[in-house]
C-alpha cells in the first residue's frame, strides 16, 4: 500500500516536472519571443520573466531583444564628383516585431542578409548624390541620417528597426591615396618654401631698416657736427676780426712776415728787383 503510494507519488512528480517543463518558459531581459500553436501564431512575449504556454501544443520562438550589430564588408562606391571611396559602414538594429521577422525572414541570420541588401543599396544611392567632400566632412551626419531613415523604413517590413547607420571608414583606394600623398608633399613643400621666403623677407627688411637707420644716424650727426664746426668758425672769425680791427695795417705787416717765414723755405729761390721794398732792405746801401 505504502509502496504503491510512493510509486504513485514518484510518477506524479515526474509528470508534474514534465508538464511544468513543457509549459513554463523563461524570457530573459535580452530576449523576446513569439508563441505558436501548431504553427499558428498565438502571442508575442515582449516582457522578460516566467511565462506559461500549453505544453506540447505550443512552441516558443525566442528572438534577441538587444541592439544588434551589422557590419558590412568595405566596398568601393563612386561619389557624385566621380571619385572612388572605399566605404566601410555598419548599422545597429533591433527586432521590434518578432512575428513579422519570423514570417518574412525566419530568423536573425535572414534579417542580416536582408539588411545587407537594404543598407548597401541605400548607402550607395545616397553617396552617389554627394561629392567626396560632403561625405567626408561637411554633411556626413546628415547623409547618414537620411540613409538611416530610408533603411529603417524598408527594414520595418521585416520587423526590424534600424537604430543607426554609420560610415565607419571612408577611405581612398590605394592608388588614389598615393596621389593624395603626392599632393600633401607638394603642399608641404610650398609651405616650407613660403616659410623660408618669409624668413628671407623679414631678414632683408630688418637689415634694410637697420642700414637706413644707420645712414640717418650718421647723416644727422654730420649735420650737427657741421653746424658746430660752422659755429666754431664763425666765432673764431668774429674774434679775429675784433682783434685785428684795432690796427689792420699792423696786422697785415705781422701776418705777412709770418707768411714769409712759413712760405720761404730752404729750397726757395727768390728773385727780386733791386728797387723793390724787399730789396731796399737787403741792399748794402741801406746799411
Amino acid at each position: 500500500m505504502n509502496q504503491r503510494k510512493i510509486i504513485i507519488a514518484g510518477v506524479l512528480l515526474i509528470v508534474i516536472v514534465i508538464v511544468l517543463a513543457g509549459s513554463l518558459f523563461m524570457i530573459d531581459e535580452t530576449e523576446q519571443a513569439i508563441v505558436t500553436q501548431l504553427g499558428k501564431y498565438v502571442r508575442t512575449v515582449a516582457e522578460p520573466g516566467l511565462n506559461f504556454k500549453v505544453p506540447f501544443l505550443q512552441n516558443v520562438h525566442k528572438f534577441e531583444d538587444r541592439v544588434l550589430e551589422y557590419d558590412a564588408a568595405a566596398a568601393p562606391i563612386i561619389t557624385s564628383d566621380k571619385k572612388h571611396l572605399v566605404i566601410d559602414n555598419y548599422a545597429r538594429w533591433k527586432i521590434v516585431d518578432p512575428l513579422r521577422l519570423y514570417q518574412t525572414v525566419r530568423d536573425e541570420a535572414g534579417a542580416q542578409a536582408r539588411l545587407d541588401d537594404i543598407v548597401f543599396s541605400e548607402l550607395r544611392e545616397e553617396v552617389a548624390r554627394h561629392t567626396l567632400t560632403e561625405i567626408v566632412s561637411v554633411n556626413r551626419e546628415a547623409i547618414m541620417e537620411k540613409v538611416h531613415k530610408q533603411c529603417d523604413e524598408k527594414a520595418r517590413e521585416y520587423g526590424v528597426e534600424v537604430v543607426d547607420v554609420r560610415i565607419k571608414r571612408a577611405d581612398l583606394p590605394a592608388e588614389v591615396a598615393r596621389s593624395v600623398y603626392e599632393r600633401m608633399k607638394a603642399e608641404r613643400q610650398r609651405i616650407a618654401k613660403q616659410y623660408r621666403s618669409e624668413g628671407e623677407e623679414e631678414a632683408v627688411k630688418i637689415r634694410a631698416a637697420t642700414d637706413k637707420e644707420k645712414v640717418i644716424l650718421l647723416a644727422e650727426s654730420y649735420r650737427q657736427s657741421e653746424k658746430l664746426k660752422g659755429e666754431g668758425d664763425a666765432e673764431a672769425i668774429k674774434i679775429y676780426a675784433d682783434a685785428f680791427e684795432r690796427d689792420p695795417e699792423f696786422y697785415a705787416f705781422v701776418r705777412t712776415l709770418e707768411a714769409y717765414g712759413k712760405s720761404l723755405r730752404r729750397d726757395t729761390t727768390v728773385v727780386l728787383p733791386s728797387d723793390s721794398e724787399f730789396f731796399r732792405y737787403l741792399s748794402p746801401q741801406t746799411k
Partner: protein
Amino acid sequence: MAKVYYKQWEDEGIRAPFGPSIRFNWLWLKWIIPVLVLIWLLSGIYIVRPDEQGVVRRFGKAVRVAEPGPNYHLPRPIEQVDKVKVKQIRRMEIGFRTISPGPPARYKFRPEESLMLTGDEQIIDAQIIMQYQIQEPEKFLFNVRDLEMPQGALMDAAEVALRQVVGQRPIDDVLITEKLQIEIDIRELLQRIIDRYDSGVKIREVKLQTVRPPEEVAAAFSDVVSAKEDKDRLVKEAEGYSKDVLPKARGQAERIIREAEAYRAERIKRAEGDADRFLSVLKEYEKAKDVTRKRLYLETMERILPGIRKFVIDRDVGGNVLQFLPLEEGGEK
C-alpha cells in the same frame, strides 16, 4: 511541497514492516535532503564589492539592483546576479593596441583604424584613447549585444566619432591647433551615438594620442618644421645684425658730434689765443711803432734768408730774368 511529502514518508517509514535497512535509508534522507536544500538556499549569498553594483534577474527579468556589501538572491534558477564594475574607468584604444604596458610600453599600430581623411582631403594618422564608465548597469548588461566586443558597438562608434570629427577639419587644425576641441567634439559625438543604443555607458574622456602625418609624407612635414626654424633663424640673424650695427652707428654719430664740438671749442680758443697774442703785441708796438716794425722785419729776414737762394736783379735787366737762371746750376746753397 517537497517537505510535506518527506514528512509523510518519514512518519510511515517508522511504522514500516521492512526492517532496519529501510529505516536507515529514511534517516539518511532525513539528513541529506535538508542539507542539500540548505546548500541550495545558501548559494544565493553573494558579495558586491565597493566598486560594483549587482543586477538581480528573477526568471530573466531584472528586479533589483544590489549595492556593495553582502547580498542575497533566491538561488538559481529562480534568481541570478550580474555584477558590474560601475566605478571602474574602462579604457579603449583606437588606432593602436598596447601589447605590454611596460616600461618601456610596447604598442601595435593599426593603420587601418588610424589613417583617415581630413576636411581638406589629406590623410592623417590619428590615435585616441577613450575612457568610459558604466553608468546604468541594467542597460549596460541587457541593451546591446556586442557593446564591448572587439569591433563591437563602442569601438565602432568611437571610430565613427573620431573620423567624423577629424573629417570636418583641415589637417593643420588637427595636427596643431585644435586638439582640445577635437577631443571634446569626439566625446560628445560618441556619447550621442551610443546613447542611441541606450547602452548605459558614459564617456568620460577622449584623448588624442599620437596625431601625425602618415609615414609617406612625414619627411615633407618635418621639413616644414625646419623651414619654420630656418625662418626664425634668418630673422634672428637679421635682428642680430641690427643689434650689432645700430649701437656702433650711434657710437660713431656721437663721436662725430663730439669731434665737431671739440673743433668748435678749439677754433674759438685758438682764435682767442691768437687775438690775445696780437693784442699784446699791438699794445707794445703802439708804444714804439717804427722801431718795432723794423725790428720785427729784420728778425724775420734774419730767420728766413740764410736758407734760401737769393737773386737781386736790377730793374733794367729785370725784363729778362730767365737768362740768369742757368748760372745757378750747381751753385752754393
